[in-house]
Each structure stands twice: as structure tokens, then as C-alpha cells.
């Protein structure tokens, strides 16, 4: 008697548990990892985006892992370790656009798809495609906005990013092109590289302003940290004569726009890159492949480039730009599969 009551109670409890406890089921059993080139505030946007994508598309595992330093070896060790732990699809910012290719070849031979996000690998490559900001176009747009804010004349300085960043060379060319289109009305006084590092950037920007403040009419910063450093420097100087257009949307830069020290900033779309990137990796790991006839953009680095979109943020749209970028990301996700992938 006692035994049958106990048995019945257990059965009932089990029934309730099955009925009412949240049973988590996943549409996909893929394990996806996003791996940046190293520690950098730009990639902070990837964390939430990946979690949102995992939730929205039922992906069982989506991790964000950071190499301890900006070294190719640290990144490849991390990638290979994750592959050994069962990750079967990777999104990454290449620690080196050429050096990462041998690891990608290994992944390909083990049927592990990989895509480059926010920065591209150099063709020939086994990365399925590159999903990033068209940095050339973004730098060009930012420089044009700077020139307009300067009244179309004067001397500008370009604060460029890490020399090992594959995007830096493209940005330099874009700035030079925008300047050349003014037919001499605007001149490029100097390009200062490796400013995307807090200590070095701080030293270089302050040295520039100390020595050439009166010659400089505008600053175009095409790197995250240099945008922040330049904003702080101009604010400390109290100088609103020198126009600044930066990149990315750090709070310091946005406050600078509010207070008149910064003319504008080109907001990239790290959220969209990670959100759509995770979605596409799940599809690739589930058997989809890239569509040869898709509208790929050809850049100096790769023939399979997709622009993740940018927005020029000024005082007029500073409160609405985030929604603009999110709407852009969701719009891209909705049409991504049909546009770029072939799925069985």
C-alpha cells in the first residue's frame, strides 16, 4: 500500500515536471564560436548579438572567446582548441589576413565552416565569405563629412589604426581619395598610424596637437580608440575650431557630438555583424553553402565581401541611430539566406 502511494506520487510529480518545467529544445545542435583578433572594445557588441541570435534561431551553443593578446599564434591556438572541444563553425576577426589561412584550410578539410567578421582574410582563402564594414566606403564617407564641416578647405590629419589591422591600408587609401577630390582645397597634412592603442594613441594625438594645432583644420579618426583619444584631447584643449569625425560610437565620442567638439562619427554595426554572422554560421554548419552567383562585392582582399552597413551619426540623428542599425541588421538577416546561401 505504502509502496503504491509512493509510486503514484512519483509518477504524478514526473508528469507535472514534464508538463510545466521549461523544456529547452533547440532547432540546431551546432556549436558556434565567435573569436576576435584580440581584446578590443569594438567586439563588446558581439556578446549580446550572439546570445540574441542563439535565442532567436534556437542554436544550442554560441560562445564568444577572446585571445589573450593580439597575436596570430594566440588566436590560432584558441581556434584549434575550440575545434577540439567540438565547435563546428567559427566567426572570427583575422589576427593576420594571410597567416590565418592555413588554419582555415585545416578547418575546411574537417568540414568546419568559417567566416571572417569585421575584417577580411586575403584571397585565396577558405573563409566562406567576409561580413564586415566596407571600411573604404566608411572612411571615404567620414572624410567627406569632415571636409564639408570644415567648409571645404584646410588641412586634415588622419589618425589610423593598428598597422597589423587589414583594414588600415584600405582606410588610408579612402582618405587620400576624398582629399584628392577637393583639387587642392584640402590637404592631408599627416597620417599617424598605430593610434588604436590607448597609450600610444594618447601620446601621438597630444604630440600632434601640441606641435601642429594651428595648422590642423580637421581630424579624421578611422580607429576606435583614436576617436576616443582625439575627442578627449580636443575637449581638454577646449577647441571647437578643429573639426573631428571619428569612427564607432563610444560614449565619449557621442558626448563630444552633443557638446560640439565632434562633428560626427561613423557608426559601424558590430551587433549586426555578430547577429547575422551567427545566423549564417548555423546555416552553413547545417549543410548550406555559399551561392556562387550571389551579389558579392570584390575588394582588394577578397572576392566574397558583404557590407554590414554603417551610419553617419551627427547631432541630427544621435538619438535614433541605434535603432537604425538594429533595423538594418534584422533586414539583412531576413534576406540573407535567400541572397547569399544555397540550402538543400
Amino acid at each position, binding site marked *: 500500500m505504502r509502496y503504491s502511494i509512493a509510486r503514484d506520487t512519483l509518477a504524478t510529480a514526473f508528469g507535472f515536471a514534464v508538463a510545466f518545467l521549461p523544456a529547452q529544445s533547440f532547432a540546431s545542435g551546432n556549436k558556434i564560436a565567435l573569436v576576435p583578433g584580440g581584446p578590443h572594445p569594438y567586439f563588446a557588441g558581439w556578446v549580446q548579438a550572439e546570445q540574441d541570435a542563439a535565442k532567436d534561431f534556437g542554436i544550442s551553443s554560441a560562445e564568444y572567446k577572446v585571445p589573450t593578446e593580439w597575436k596570430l599564434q594566440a588566436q590560432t591556438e584558441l581556434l584549434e582548441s575550440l575545434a577540439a572541444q*567540438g565547435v563546428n563553425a567559427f566567426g572570427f576577426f583575422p589576427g593576420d589576413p594571410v597567416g590565418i589561412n*592555413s588554419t582555415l584550410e585545416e578547418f575546411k578539410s574537417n568540414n568546419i565552416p568559417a567566416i571572417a567578421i569585421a575584417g577580411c582574410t586575403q584571397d585565396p582563402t577558405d573563409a566562406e565569405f567576409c561580413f564586415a564594414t566596407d571600411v573604404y566606403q566608411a572612411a571615404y564617407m567620414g572624410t567627406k563629412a569632415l571636409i564639408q564641416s570644415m567648409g571645404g578647405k584646410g588641412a586634415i590629419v588622419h589618425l589610423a589604426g593598428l598597422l597589423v589591422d587589414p583594414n588600415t591600408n584600405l582606410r588610408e587609401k579612402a582618405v587620400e581619395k576624398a582629399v584628392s577630390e577637393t583639387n587642392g582645397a584640402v590637404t592631408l597634412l599627416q597620417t599617424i598610424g598605430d593610434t588604436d592603442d590607448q597609450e600610444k594613441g594618447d601620446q601621438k594625438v597630444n604630440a600632434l596637437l601640441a606641435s601642429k594645432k594651428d595648422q590642423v583644420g580637421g581630424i579624421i579618426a578611422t580607429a576606435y580608440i583614436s576617436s576616443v583619444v582625439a575627442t578627449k584631447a580636443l575637449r581638454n584643449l577646449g577647441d571647437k575650431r578643429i573639426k573631428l569625425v571619428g569612427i564607432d560610437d563610444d560614449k565619449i565620442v557621442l558626448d563630444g557630438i552633443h557638446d560640439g567638439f565632434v562633428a560626427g562619427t561613423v557608426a559601424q554595426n558590430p551587433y549586426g555583424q555578430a547577429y547575422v554572422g551567427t545566423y549564417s554560421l548555423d546555416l552553413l554548419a547545417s549543410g548550406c553553402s555559399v551561392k556562387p552567383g550571389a551579389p558579392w562585392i570584390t575588394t582588394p582582399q577578397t572576392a566574397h565581401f558583404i557590407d554590414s552597413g554603417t551610419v553617419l551619426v551627427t547631432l541630427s540623428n544621435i538619438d535614433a541611430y541605434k535603432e537604425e542599425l538594429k533595423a538594418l541588421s534584422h533586414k539583412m538577416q531576413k534576406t540573407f539566406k535567400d541572397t547569399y546561401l544555397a540550402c538543400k
Partner: protein
Amino acid sequence: MRSCLNDKFSRTPSRGIADLLIRGSARFGLLFILLVLWIVFSSLSPGFLSRFNLGSMFRSVAVDVVVGCAQMVVLATGGMNLSVGAIGVCAVMSVGYFLQVLNLPLPIAILATLGVGGLLGWLNGVAIAKTGVNSFVVTLASASLFSGGMLILTKGVPLNALPPALGSFGRMSFGPVPALALVTIAIGVVLHIAFFHTTLGRQILAAGANARAAEMSGIRVNRIVVVAHSLSGMLAAAAALMLTARLGAAMPSVAGDDWVLPSFLAPVIGGTALSGGEVSVVGAILGALLVATIRSGLLILQIGDFWLQLFLGVFLLAAIMFERYRATLMLRQQVRRL
């Protein structure tokens, strides 16, 4: 006396694994630590012993061992070579230039690259021997010189249209053992024979143990220093060739400062004396394996990204302190028996 000692030792019963650990060589102690770590990591995460992970680890160790050997041959003389990385990156870009720009056949390009490494090492050796300036200072200066010269000549542009055969070799493996690891073993065997079974090797060790006594014994110490640095340069070039094969491209961002610490770590952990006169090729291999094992194990256990360096340091310190403690215990036991 010797037979008494032998009798004494042979009569002393073994107390099992603890006694074996204490009596064994430093290399045995390292091997024991390695085995323990492998057992621990593989039981905590089966992925540690996966073909993928082992292949990745061995490929990384293969280059690190040769980099360590490049430093070891100079440590043997009581000096040091801070330009191992700089010679490495010069060799990387040299092989890229020979293969892609000059279109030399692969074997010729390899020999020429080894020659470049040897030449740069020879320059170091000559500068040290002629001026009498400490190798630390000379090689610190030459590191900047070699790196700077390389950047000026190459303008920092990578060369990635190398013959596919080089990259294929770099990716080749026999089960979990990469082809690059076999190259390392071959280099290790040659070095071991050179140090312990040739006159030159003995002279290098003698010059490192006591340069004055070696000079008075008829060994031309300056010549030995030049030879050791030339050999170091060639070994750095060999490591550079292996790295280029691994990457399938010649890139100016590899080697350089990244090689300085690993070049000391492997041989010193393995028992090579910083003061000179004592080397261990097997120890260098085990030392490199230990560092790679700890790094790989912590990664595979998903130790938080920024905790990795801290735990790597803790594990290394623990491993080295265990080995030193073991060596001290052994010495005490031997003294007691006498």
C-alpha cells in the same frame, strides 16, 4: 672507491615510485610531470587527446623546440642570443623572397635561407669575439638592426604566393604526429650527437663551463663563440622555415619579439645552465612540451580568457619548483649515502 660506492647503491633498496622520482634525472622528473598533466587534462576533458588538439600542440612545439635549441647552443658557451627572433623573421622573409621573387627551386631556397641565418649569427659571433662586449648587449643591438633592415627591405609586405609544396609539407602529418615534429626530432638527434660525441661539441661545453680554463687547454674560445652563434643563426633560420611551411606564407609579423621568451623557456626548464657548460636537447624538448601542454590544457578546460596567462605562470612555477625540490632531495640522499 667506485666499486664500494656501487655496492652501496646497489644494496640500497628502492622504496618505489617516490625513490625513483628522487633518484631519476631532471629529465625524468620533467617527463613525470608531463605524464601527470596529460592524465589530468585528458580526464578533465577528452578533447585534449583528440587528433586535432594533439596535432595542433605538436606543430606548435616543433617550432618552439628548434627556437629553444637556437638559444641553447649559445647558452652552452655562457652567452645569450637576444636576436633569435630577429634572425627568424629575416629568414622568413628571405625564403619568401627566394621562392616568390627569385623563383628558386625549393631545396636551393632552403639552403640559401639557412645560409642567411648562419651569416647573421656569424656577424653576432664576430662582433662579440672581436670587441669583447657581452653577448647580451651585442645581440640586443643586432636584434633591432636585423629587424629594422628587414622592414626597410620588405616594406612590411607579406609574400603569400609561395610554392604549394611548402605549405603542404607544413600541414602534413602521420596520425597525430606532424611532419614538422619529425624535422625537429631529426635536428634534436643531430644536436645531441654534436654536443656529446664530437670534439666541437665538447669544446663548446668546455668554453661555457670555464672559458679561461678552456683557453689554457688549447681551445680557441673566440672561435667557439663565433661557431656557436653561427649555429644559433642557422637553427633560428630552420625554425623560420618550419614556421613559413606551417603558415604557407612569409609574413613580417611573425617571430621577432615573440621568440625571445620561448627561446629561453624550453632549454632552461629542460636543464640547460644559463651560466654555460651544460645542455640537454631532450630537456629542451620536454621543456617545450611542458609549456605547450599547460597552455593547451588550460585552453581546453576553458579557463577564462584573461586568466590563462596567470594560470600558465602558476603551473610553470609549480612544475619548476617541484623539479628543483626533487633535485635537492636527490642531492641530499646522495650526500647521506656517502
